[in-house]
C-alpha cells in the first residue's frame, strides 16, 4: 500500500509542477481604475445564449466592447437567491456599468443601487416606479409589438384560429406581448379565435427554458386547426417556432428578428415582435461612458415588427398596408392597445 500511496503523491507533485510551469496567473484588468471602463451583465435565471432576451442584451454590451473599448463580463444566474450576490461581484470589483437583465432582478437591482452609488445600473425590463438616481429602467412597449403581431396573424389566418405560446404571465413584458397579441387580433378581426397559453405550470427557472413544452403545445394547437402561432418566451417560445416549422404552419418570433437566431424556422417565419434590446442597451452604456446617463427613471426603447423575409410574397399588399397603418397609429398615440401593464390579481 505504501508503494501506491507514494506513487499517487508523486503524481500529484508532478501535476503541480506542470501546472506551475504554465502561464502565471490570469491577467486581471483593474476596473476600479478610473480610466478603465468596465461593463458587467447579470442574466436572469437562464442562459446567455437563449437566442433572444439575454443574448440580445449581451449583444448590446459586446457592441460596447467593440465600439467603446469597454471591458465586459457576464455572470449567469442559476438561482434567484443569487441575484444580490452576482450583482455584488461586479460592484465590488469596481465596474462602471452593471446591466441586470430581466424583471426578476428588479428588486435586487434597486437594493444594489444605493450600495454602489458610483455605478450606473441599467435594469432591462425593470419599470422604475420611484426614481433612484443611478438606476435606469430600460423598458419597451411590448403590447404595441404584440398588437401588431396579433393583427398580422389574424389577417393572415385562413382557418380563423391563431395561437400564442409564451413563458409565464407573471413577468409583465410577457403578459403584455400575449395580451397585446390578443387585442391586436381581435381589433382587425373580431370573430378570430385566439388561444393564448402561458407556461405558468413550472417554476421561474424553467418557464423560459422549456423548448419541449413549447413544441408540444404548438403541435397540439396545430392539431386543432390553429394556423399562425406566436412563440414568445426564450427557449420555450423557440420550441413553438420549431413545432410550426415541422408542420409547415406560420410562426411569429419575439424580442429580436428570430429569422437569424432560429434558422430552422426560416421557411415559416412571418415576422417577429421585436423589442430592440441591443441598441437600447448600447445607447444607455454609451451615455454612461459619455457622462450623460439619465438620472434615474425609465428609458423607453423601441419596438416593432421584423421584416417578412421568406414570406414576403405571401403577405398581400393590403394586409401590409393595414399593419403599417396600425403601427403609425400606435406610435402617434391615436390608437391604444388597452392592455394593462401587469397581469391583474
Amino acid at each position, binding site marked *: 500500500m505504501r508503494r501506491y500511496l507514494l506513487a*499517487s503523491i508523486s503524481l500529484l507533485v508532478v*501535476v503541480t509542477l506542470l501546472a506551475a510551469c504554465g502561464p502565471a496567473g490570469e491577467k486581471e484588468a483593474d476596473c476600479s481604475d478610473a480610466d478603465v471602463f468596465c461593463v458587467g451583465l447579470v442574466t436572469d435565471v437562464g442562459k446567455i445564449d437563449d437566442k433572444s432576451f439575454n443574448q440580445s442584451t449581451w449583444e448590446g454590451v459586446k457592441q460596447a466592447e467593440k465600439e467603446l473599448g469597454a471591458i465586459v463580463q457576464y455572470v449567469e444566474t442559476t438561482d434567484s437567491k443569487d441575484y444580490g450576490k452576482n450583482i455584488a461581484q461586479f460592484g465590488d470589483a469596481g465596474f462602471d456599468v452593471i446591466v441586470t437583465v430581466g424583471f426578476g432582478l428588479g428588486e435586487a437591482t434597486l437594493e444594489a443601487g444605493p450600495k454602489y452609488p458610483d455605478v450606473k445600473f441599467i435594469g432591462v425590463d425593470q419599470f422604475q*416606479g420611484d426614481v433612484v438616481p443611478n438606476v435606469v429602467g430600460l423598458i419597451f412597449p411590448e403590447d404595441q409589438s404584440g398588437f401588431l403581431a396579433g393583427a398580422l396573424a389574424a389577417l393572415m389566418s385562413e382557418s380563423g384560429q391563431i395561437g400564442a405560446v409564451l413563458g409565464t404571465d407573471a413577468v409583465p413584458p410577457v403578459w403584455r406581448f400575449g395580451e397585446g397579441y390578443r387585442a391586436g387580433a381581435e381589433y382587425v378581426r373580431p370573430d378570430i379565435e385566439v388561444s393564448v397559453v402561458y407556461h405558468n405550470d413550472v417554476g421561474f427557472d424553467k418557464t423560459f427554458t422549456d423548448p419541449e413544452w413549447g413544441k408540444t403545445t404548438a403541435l397540439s394547437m396545430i392539431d386543432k386547426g390553429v394556423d399562425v402561432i406566436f412563440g414568445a418566451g426564450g427557449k420555450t417560445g423557440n420550441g413553438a417556432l420549431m413545432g410550426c416549422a415541422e408542420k409547415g404552419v406560420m410562426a411569429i418570433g419575439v424580442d429580436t428578428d428570430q429569422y437569424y437566431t432560429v434558422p430552422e424556422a426560416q421557411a415559416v417565419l412571418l415576422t417577429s415582435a421585436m423589442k430592440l434590446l441591443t441598441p437600447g442597451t448600447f445607447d444607455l452604456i454609451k451615455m454612461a461612458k459619455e457622462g450623460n446617463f439619465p438620472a434615474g427613471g425609465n428609458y423607453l426603447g423601441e419596438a416593432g415588427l421584423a421584416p417578412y423575409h421568406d414570406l414576403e410574397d405571401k403577405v398581400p399588399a393590403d394586409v401590409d398596408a393595414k399593419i403599417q397603418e396600425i403601427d403609425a397609429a400606435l406610435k402617434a398615440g391615436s390608437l391604444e392597445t388597452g392592455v394593462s401593464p401587469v397581469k391583474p390579481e
Partner: protein
Amino acid sequence: MSTSAEKPAPGTTPKIKSAVNAVLVPLLAVFTAMVLGALIIMSAGGEPVAAYRGLIEGAFGSAQALSETTVWGTPYIFAGLAVALAFKGGLFNIGAEGQLALGAVAAAWVGYALPDALGVTLPPVIHVPLAVGAGMLAGAIWGAIPGWLKAHTGGHEVINTIMMNYIALNLTSFLLNGPMKDPAPLNVVARTPRIAEGARIPPIFAGLRFHWGFILALVVAGIVWWVLQKTTLGFEIRTAGANPDAARYAGVNVPRTIVMTMMLSGLLAGLAGATEVTALNYRHELGFSVGYGFDAIAIALLGKTHPLGVVLASLLWAAMRNGATRMQFLTQIPVDVISVIQALILLFVAADAIIRWIYRIRAEEERLVLTRGWGG
C-alpha cells in the same frame, strides 16, 4: 469480498487500526477523485492548482467563506443524517428533498401566517419552537407516508420517495405561486412573505450568514448517534435494517419500525427546511432544485452512515459547492466540474473495491447491501 482477519501490527491496537481503516477508504476515494478532477480540468485547458486554490479560498479563505460553507453544510448535515438513519434501518430515503421543502413551507406558514390566523402576536419563546416543530412534523408526515406504504403494501420506498419529491415540488409550487405568495409589489418570484419578527432566530455574528441552525445540526447529529446506539428504538431500527427476519424473531415489530424509521428520517429532513426558514432566510423561496436528495445519499455513504462521518462528509460537500463559485469567478472553470468530482467520489465509495485495488487495502468490514429488489 472476503473478510480476512489480520493480526494487529505490533504497537497498534485493533481499535485504532479499524478506526484508521474506516476513514481510509473514504479519504482515498476523495483524493483519487480530486486527482481525476485535476486531469479533467487540465483537459479543459485549465490549471488544476489554480482551480483548487480558488476552491479552497472560496470555501475557507475568509470568515465570510467559512460562514458560507457552514450555511451550505447545515441542510447537508440534516439531510445526510436523514438518509443515514434510513440506511441504518435498511431503507432508501431519496425523498429528503421533498421532506425538506414541506418542512420549510410549514415552518414559513407558522412563521408568517399563524399570528394573523390566531389574532395574537406570539413571543419568540413560543413562536420559534412552533415554527420549527411544524417543520419537523411536516417532514415526519412526508416521510411516514412512503414508510407506511412500504410496511403495509410492500411498495418500494425508492420509487415512492422519488414520487413524493415531485408531488412535494408541485405542492410547494402551487402554494408559493398562489395562496402563500409574497404579495409585495415588485415580487415575481415564488416565495412566501417574511416571517414575523418573533419567529426569527437571530444570527450569531452581524454580517455573516453563519447561523444557529449549524449548531443545531451538530447537536442533532449527536442525538441521532445516541438514539441509534443507546436506545431500544435505535436497536430496533438497526436490527430491522440488518436482518428483518431475525428482527421479527427477536420480537421487533418490523412494520412499525419501518414506519418509525421513515418518519424520523423525514423529520430530520424537515428540520433542515425549518432551520433554513427560521434561522437563515426568514422566508421560503422556491429554488432551483439543488438535488439534495442525491447529495444526501452520497454524503451518507461517504460518512459510512455514521453521524460523525455524515457531519464531516457534509462539510466536505459544502466546501466544494461553496468554493466552486469562487473557483469559477477566478479561473473560469465551470462549477459543474465539482459535480463530476462528487460523482467520482460516490463511485469510489460505492465500489470501494476499486480503491482497495489501487491502494492495496484489505477489506475489513461488511459491504453495504440494501437492495432486496422491489419487494411485493
